[in-house]
């Protein structure tokens, strides 16, 4: 915890020094940003836009993770299913985000459902790819054990599969959350009347770096807090069984 704090302080210090040296409107220093954040928080603008974005992030993340994990697991376990579904996966994986967003907005409408679906569909194949590798790496010996002892399906998933998939889940949800957030920004930019992406779009056309950075940093701080207070403690618990390297 202490080391993390030091490291963050160092990061901010470096930023402050560089900003002070450059003295450019295009790289505002931490103080400018701090002030901007305070102002926008007081007016209620920032909390409102942030809440809009977070709602979308959460919804699409949950959808993408659940569907992606199920599909990835199925593909990793069944060679036949994998062979049939793989080309579709490659197509979805490499379809430009813009195309998916466009189709969603055109065929579903310029609304919340379309926005969330577009993000989830963009993220989904990445989850599938990671979880498929995880499912392929499952230990067949433990599987035999569970079969011999007739583990119930739920118990098998909870006690056998999920712990083995844990590192893959951790990787794909951590990098996934960030990807979802980035796509939500684009989706909001293109067709939502609120949210951080909407603000960034306007700020970009005005080249208002302070605004862009202050919203970005608020999200990052939120992620840092979640990471320190939720994810890492959870992770430590989940990894308790690992032998500490001597």
């Amino acid at each position, binding site marked *: 915890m202490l080391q993390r704090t030091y490291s963050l302080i160092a990061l901010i210090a470096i930023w402050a020094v560089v900003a002070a040296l450059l003295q450019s409107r295009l790289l505002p220093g931490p103080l400018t940003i701090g002030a901007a954040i305070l102002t926008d928080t007081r007016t209620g603008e920032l909390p409102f836009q942030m809440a809009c974005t977070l709602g979308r992030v959460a919804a699409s993340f949950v959808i993408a993770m659940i569907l992606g994990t199920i599909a990835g697991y199925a593909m990793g376990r069944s060679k036949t299913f994998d062979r049939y579904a793989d080309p579709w996966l490659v197509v979805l994986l490499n379809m430009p985000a813009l195309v998916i967003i466009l189709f969603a907005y055109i065929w*579903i409408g*310029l*609304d919340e459902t379309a926005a969330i679906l577009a993000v989830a569909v963009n993220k989904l194949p990445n989850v599938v790819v990671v979880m498929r590798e995880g499912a392929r790496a499952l230990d067949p010996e433990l599987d035999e054990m569970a079969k011999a002892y007739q583990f119930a399906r739920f118990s098998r998933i909870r006690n056998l599969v999920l712990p083995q998939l844990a590192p893959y889940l951790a990787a794909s949800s951590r990098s996934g959350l960030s990807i979802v957030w980035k796509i939500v920004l684009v989706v909001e*930019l293109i*067709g*939502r009347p609120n949210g951080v*992406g*909407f*603000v960034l779009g306007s700020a970009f056309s*005005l080249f208002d770096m302070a605004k862009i950075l202050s919203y970005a940093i608020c999200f990052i701080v939120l992620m840092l807090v979640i990471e320190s207070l939720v994810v890492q403690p959870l992770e430590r618990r989940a990894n308790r069984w690992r032998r500490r390297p001597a």
Partner: protein
Amino acid sequence: EALRISAQSTGTFAWQLDVIRRHGLAEEAGLDLKISESASPDAGKLALNSGSVDLAVVDWLWVARARALGAKWLFYPYSSAAGAVMVKGDSPVREIKDLKDRVLGIAGGPLDKSWLIVQAAAIRQGIDLKRAAKLEYGAPPLISQKLQQGETEASLNFWNFCASLETRGYRRILDVRDAEAALGLHQPLALIGYVFSEQFAANHKSTIDRFIAAAQKANDIMLRSDTEWEALRPLMNAEDDRTFKAYRDRTREGIPQRPVAAEEEDARTLFRALANIGGAPLVGPSQELDQALYYKPTPAAETEHCCRELIR
């Protein structure tokens, strides 16, 4: 009666809508405007296509092209404000032909309408800018930034960026409006306008007409009243007074003042010029402007328009 409208939050349409709102012009016309804001200029097209809104402010060219491909949109002039090619105040570049071998930044892409108009005008002067100058394409804010950083020596950008650059001592070497004149247009053409579907117009003709009338009232207010602009100022994101004034004056300048028929004639001329230079990727399969592109309001509205013209 409800009318769903999409507007870019940083655009001038948002200003016009604000005037309509503050003066109660919509209620007066019996309209209930449902406005959805967006951050991107493309949201309007998306919203129209998905049926989420009834009306948006969109590019003239886009509508022309879509019509050529079979999508029945109608267009009614909204603004003729346009950008310009600009250079630093102390730049040796004076005219288009000085751009030879210099770096020219272009906002949007190779199919951007202003860029095509400038190209066409340059060709009439015997200069093929595409070959003569070194081109950099990029997003408008970035192109504006690059001119200020000196990475590009000249840039063609949207009118609002030009207005703000002008206040910082940058110079226009070719206005897109002048380029239009060079192409034989009588007056600058409104390159953006209100767009709605033929079907909507057929079913809700009076709604559209009433909206156009209300918009014209708002235009009048914006043309006449300076205090009105003070009220609009918070929306305008102008750094300083000069930028604010530049925005105001350019917006006023862009408000179309002539009957639709006159617009239509110039539009046909411009379309032909652009079809020549942009080819099929730009204008689609057709080389001639679709006759039915322009929306014709019922005579009452039109008359009012002309009368106002006369009064001025």
